[in-house]
């Protein structure tokens, strides 16, 4: 049952793409680092290069963590909607198949948070 209503019930999604003025949302989570309580939401244009995400966006969000400076990005494992994913770093978000409200996660082998507690 999609809706129980007394008359026609038709509304638009609050977070539809057009509401973001040419940008889109990208959600990013860092596995085994729950010091950051939840994945982050970023507002980025679809032609934003994936490399710039790593170089210009993630440091501001995750840089507080002592593990962040230790990351070897060549060894990082990525997930897109929970499935293994190999991003093309020189390509845009769109070209990497990351549309509005896509969710990606990265795992940093060997780095598992404060005292290895996934914090």
């Amino acid at each position, binding site marked *: *049952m*999609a*809706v*129980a*209503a*007394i008359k026609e*019930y*038709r*509304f*638009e*999604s*609050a*977070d*539809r*793409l057009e*509401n*973001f*003025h040419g*940008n889109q*949302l990208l*959600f990013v*989570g860092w*596995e*085994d680092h*729950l*010091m*950051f*309580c*939840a*994945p*982050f*939401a*970023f*507002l980025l244009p679809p032609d934003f290069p994936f490399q710039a995400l790593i170089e210009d966006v993630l440091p*501001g*969000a995750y840089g*507080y963590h002592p593990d962040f400076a230790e990351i070897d990005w060549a060894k990082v494992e990525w997930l897109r*909607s*929970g499935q293994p994913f190999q991003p093309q770093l020189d390509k845009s978000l769109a070209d990497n198949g990351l*549309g*509005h*409200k*896509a*969710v990606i*996660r990265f795992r940093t082998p060997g780095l598992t948070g*404060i*005292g290895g*507690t*996934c*914090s």
Partner: protein
Amino acid sequence: MDMKTSSGKKLGLKEKYRHMTRGLDWETTYQKREDVFPYVAYEGIKIHDWDKWEDPFRLTMDSYWKYQAEKERKLYAIIDAYAQNNGHLNVTDARYLNAIKLFLTGISPLEYMAHRGFTHAGRAFPGSGPRVACLMQALDELRHAQTQIHSLSNYNKYYNGFHDPAHMLQRVWYLSVPRSFFDDAVTAGPFEFMVAIGFSFEYVLTNLLFVPFVSGAAYNGDMGTMTFGFSAQSDEARHMTLGLEIIKFILEQDPDNVPIVQRWIDKWTWRGYRVLTLVGMMMDYMLPKRIMSWKEAWEVYFEQNGGALFKDLSRYGIRPPKWLDQISFDKDHISHQAWATFYQYGAIADFHTWSPTEDELDWLSSKYPDSFDKYYRPRLDYWREQAEQGNRFYNKTLPQLCQTCQIPMVFTEPGDPTKICYREVDYQGEKFHFCSDGCKEIFENEPEKFKQSWLPANQIYQGNCFPDGTDPTVEGFDPVSKVLEYYNIQAGRDNLDFDGSEDQKNFAKWRGMATSNE
């Protein structure tokens, strides 16, 4: 002509109740019944005989006013005395006040929403028994909102963050959690509202809300909060009875009602449980003098009491709510996950957070032997060390939120507290994200409703959370300060760490003046 006004005999209670509630109803003649009661059929609930409704309290309005007036008189006498004697200086520690800020912004406005909801439900029901019961509960809820605001306004004279709860409920990021919970309930039909609020919240979960706050107040010297809590308690007993009666009544009326009610119980137990995360955090972290842990409260008030209730309801074909296995596992975790969230987003909240003291950490270790030292204490220790070095952690990046409960995606996989739980659904070409199987299934049952969720982080990114006239394109635009302005949070005064706050300094100064000759 002389009119004989009395037979000399007073009506008995039962007769009086009959005349003054059921006897007031009439059958419609010049309008169709379904036009007068347009909301009663569309949810699919079938009622054959409204007279089967039993009201165990048999209260009429004249007695209602009498009882309530008496309670109000006592309450306001104590509140006045508390205010006049600077009772606020008797609380255990000024950190305690932050628990009360959470109550004022997160709970009191919901009392008012409950008032609206019961008014609507009472109007929608064709039966006079539930209509009168809903009317009284609607008045109770209004009374609770008012007495809470009156009691807590005393703190607003001295401390920060108490100044604008109704405004904040509509805007501040974390308050979208309790707000959306109630908005969902009041925009449902009258039967779902009654199962949601009357039964699931008032009957199944209410002890987990009121006992912690009211006992917390008593333990921490807060006579004001304790008094309105006790004043509300006798109303709560009536509400619980109404909640149970409505469930039994609906289930007894038609077997087709059972699966609908079951789905509502599943939905609203889960939704209520998610909102109670805030209470868990309050109990485990915000009361300087603890009453019991969240886990202990959950075990007593839900697992034991709720277990007996659902055993009782099984004769109607109702089973316990879904996802209880996960809830049971998570009782070792959610309060810590919530505090970590508020600690790091402390720059954009209307109350203070802090690093727990060493003995508070020890208390948490003893109450949570299976989880605290392993997963949470190292994080808190690290944050405390960093704060002591002047590097207090303030997370400035907006989090991803759950589409249903609207809580940041902080909850972990069932059975694995080291992995964030991610769930997603593609609906009409758009992705929707959830913190749990429960929130995902609730969305899937009503996607047209939940796709409209006003998610604070996403609304900020859409540019909808700045004061009117803000131009985000000007050079040096600072979105955080504009969002705080939109929230009516005073930056540097209402937010940030308790350590160094104006509340901390004032409380210490005033208590010093009250207890010494300096």
